[in-house]
C-alpha cells in the first residue's frame, strides 16, 4: 500500500528543484547573500574590529591607563555633563512635540515635522558656525557677552547648545510615528472615565510609548556623546576644559597616540553597540505585540 502511493510521487530530481513563484534559484540566493555579507563585513565589521583591536592590542592595563589619565577623565566628565543637560531637554521636547503632532489636528503640521527633521540635513559644521557667528568673540553678541563676563563659545554652554541642536530630532522622530499609530482612543477612554490630562498621560500614554521612548533616549544619548563636527567648531579644544570625548580622540590621534585614541573610542563603540542592541530589542517587542494589536 505504502509503496504504491510512493510511486505516485514524481521524479524526485524534479521535485527537489521545485521552487515557489517568489523564490530565486538556490545559487542566485547564495550568491546574493555572499555579496551582501562581504559588503557589510568590509564596511561594518572591519571598522568595528579595528577599533577593538587597536584599543586592546597592548593589553588591558594600557587601555585602562589611557582612559583613566586626567585629560581623558576630564573629557568623559564633560561629555557626561553635556548629555545630562541635553538629553532631558530633548526628551521633554520630543514628548511635547509628539503629543502635539500625534493627538491634534492643526494647520501647518507637515511644516512642523519638516522643521524637526532639519537638523538631520544640516551639516554639523554649519551648526557650529551659526553659533560662533552669534556668540563668538568676533560675532554679533560677542562684545556684549564679553562686557558681561560671559563665555559661550570656547566654553561649555556653546558645546551644550550645538549638541542640543544636533540631537533635537532623535526622540521626537522615534515618538511621533509611534504615537500616531496608537491613535487617541485610549486617551479618550481614560478621559471619559474621569482621569485628568496628566493622569491620562502618566497611566495610559507613557506605558504605551515606553520602549520607543527608551530607545529614543539611548540614541539621543549616543549621538550627543559622539557629536563631533559642530563641537569642533565651538569648543576651541582647550585640554581638560572644553574637549569632549570625540575631540579628545581627535587630539590623541593627531599626536600619534593611536592606542589611547582607540581606547577612548572603544568606550563610545561599546555605547553604539548597546544602542543598536536596544533598538533590536524594541523592534522585537513591537513585532511580538503586533499580532495582538492587529486582531483587535
Amino acid at each position, binding site marked *: 500500500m505504502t509503496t504504491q502511493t510512493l510511486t505516485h510521487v514524481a521524479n524526485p530530481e524534479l521535485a527537489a528543484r521545485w521552487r515557489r513563484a517568489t523564490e530565486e*534559484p538556490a545559487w542566485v540566493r547564495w550568491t546574493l547573500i555572499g555579496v551582501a555579507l562581504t559588503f557589510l563585513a568590509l564596511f561594518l565589521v572591519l571598522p568595528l574590529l579595528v*577599533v577593538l583591536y587597536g584599543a586592546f592590542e597592548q593589553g588591558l592595563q594600557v587601555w585602562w591607563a589611557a582612559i583613566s589619565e586626567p585629560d581623558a577623565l576630564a573629557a568623559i566628565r564633560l561629555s557626561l555633563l553635556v548629555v545630562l543637560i541635553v538629553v532631558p531637554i530633548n526628551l521633554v521636547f520630543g514628548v511635547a512635540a509628539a503629543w502635539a503632532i500625534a493627538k491634534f489636528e492643526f494647520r501647518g503640521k507637515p511644516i512642523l515635522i519638516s522643521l524637526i527633521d532639519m537638523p538631520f540635513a544640516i*551639516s554639523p559644521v554649519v551648526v557650529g558656525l*551659526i553659533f560662533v557667528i552669534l556668540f563668538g568673540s568676533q560675532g554679533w553678541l560677542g562684545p556684549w557677552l564679553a562686557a558681561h563676563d560671559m563665555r559661550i563659545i570656547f566654553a561649555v554652554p556653546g558645546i551644550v547648545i550645538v549638541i542640543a541642536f544636533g540631537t533635537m530630532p532623535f526622540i521626537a522622530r522615534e515618538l511621533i510615528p509611534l504615537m500616531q499609530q496608537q491613535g487617541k482612543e485610549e486617551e479618550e477612554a481614560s478621559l471619559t472615565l474621569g482621569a485628568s490630562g496628566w493622569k491620562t498621560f502618566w497611566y495610559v500614554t507613557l506605558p504605551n510609548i515606553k520602549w520607543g521612548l527608551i530607545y529614543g533616549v539611548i540614541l539621543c544619548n549616543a549621538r550627543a556623546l559622539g557629536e563631533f*563636527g559642530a563641537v569642533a567648531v565651538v569648543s576651541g579644544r582647550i585640554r581638560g576644559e572644553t574637549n569632549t570625548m570625540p575631540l579628545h580622540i581627535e587630539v590623541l590621534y593627531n599626536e600619534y597616540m593611536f592606542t589611547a585614541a582607540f581606547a577612548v573610542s572603544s568606550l563610545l563603540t561599546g555605547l553604539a*553597540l548597546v544602542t543598536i542592541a536596544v533598538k533590536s530589542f524594541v523592534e522585537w517587542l513591537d513585532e511580538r505585540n503586533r499580532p495582538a494589536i492587529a486582531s483587535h
Partner: protein
Amino acid sequence: MFFSAKQRRVIPGFGLTMGFSLLYLGFIFLIPVGGLLLYTSLMSWDEFWSAVSHPQVVASYKLSFGASLIGATINLVFGALVAWVLVRYRFPGKKIVDALVDLPFALPTAVAGIALVTLYASTGWVGQYLNVFGIRVAYSQLGVVIALTYIGLPFVVRTVQPVLEDLEAEREEASASLGASRFTTIRRVILPSLLPALLTGYALAFARAVGEYGSVVFISGNMPYRTEITPLLIVAKAEQYDYNGAAAIGTVMLVAAFLLLLLINGLQWWTQRRGL
C-alpha cells in the same frame, strides 16, 4: 449660525506642548538659522560671490557633492541588495547582521574616521592589499568616497526594508503565473514598487554625506584643491575668524540642505501614496 466663543479641544495639553515645542524650536533652531541667513544677507554681493566662487571652494564643492553622489550610488546598489537579502532570505546570524546595519548611525563619526583611516592606510588591514595593486585609499579622493559610503549605509537599507516587507507575494505569483521569468518579475513588478523608497534612501544618504565632517577629515588628508571637503573649509575659515567667508559657504550648504530636505519630503509623500 453662531459659534461658541472658545474652541476647546477634548484631549488636554495642546497649548502647553505646542507652545513648548515652538519655543524650543524657535530658540535653538529658527533664530540661529535665521541669524546665519541674516548675517550673510548683510554682506555685499561681490563679497559673497568671491567667497563662494573661489577656486579652492569650488574644488571642494566638486569633491563634496561628487564623492557624496558616488557614495550614495554605491549605497543605492548595495543597500537594495542588503535589504533584499535581509527581507527575503534566511541565513544564520541574520538578526545580528540586521542590527549592525545601524552601526554607522550610532557610532561617533570621529571613531569611524580613525577606524577607516587605520584600515585603509597603506599599512592597514585592507590598505596593504590594495597597495599591491597601486590603489591608494587613505589621503586620496577615494578615501573620501569610502568614508561617505560608510556613513550613508543605513539609509537605503532602512527605507527599502519596510516597503519590501509589505509587498504582497500575490503580485509576484500573479506575474509568475502569467509566464514571466523570475528576473522579469523582479524588474517589472518588484523594482517599480520599490522605486520611491530607493530614491528616498538615495537622497537621504546623499544629504547626510554632503554635510559630513568627522568621518572624512581623518582619511582625506585635507590637501587643498584635492581632498578638501566643503565642511572642512568652513571649519578652517571659522578658526581663522574669517566669519564672512565661512558664513557665505555655510549659507550655500544650508540652502543645499534645505532643497534636499524638500526633495526628500516630496519623495516620502510619493512613497506613502504608492504604498496605498
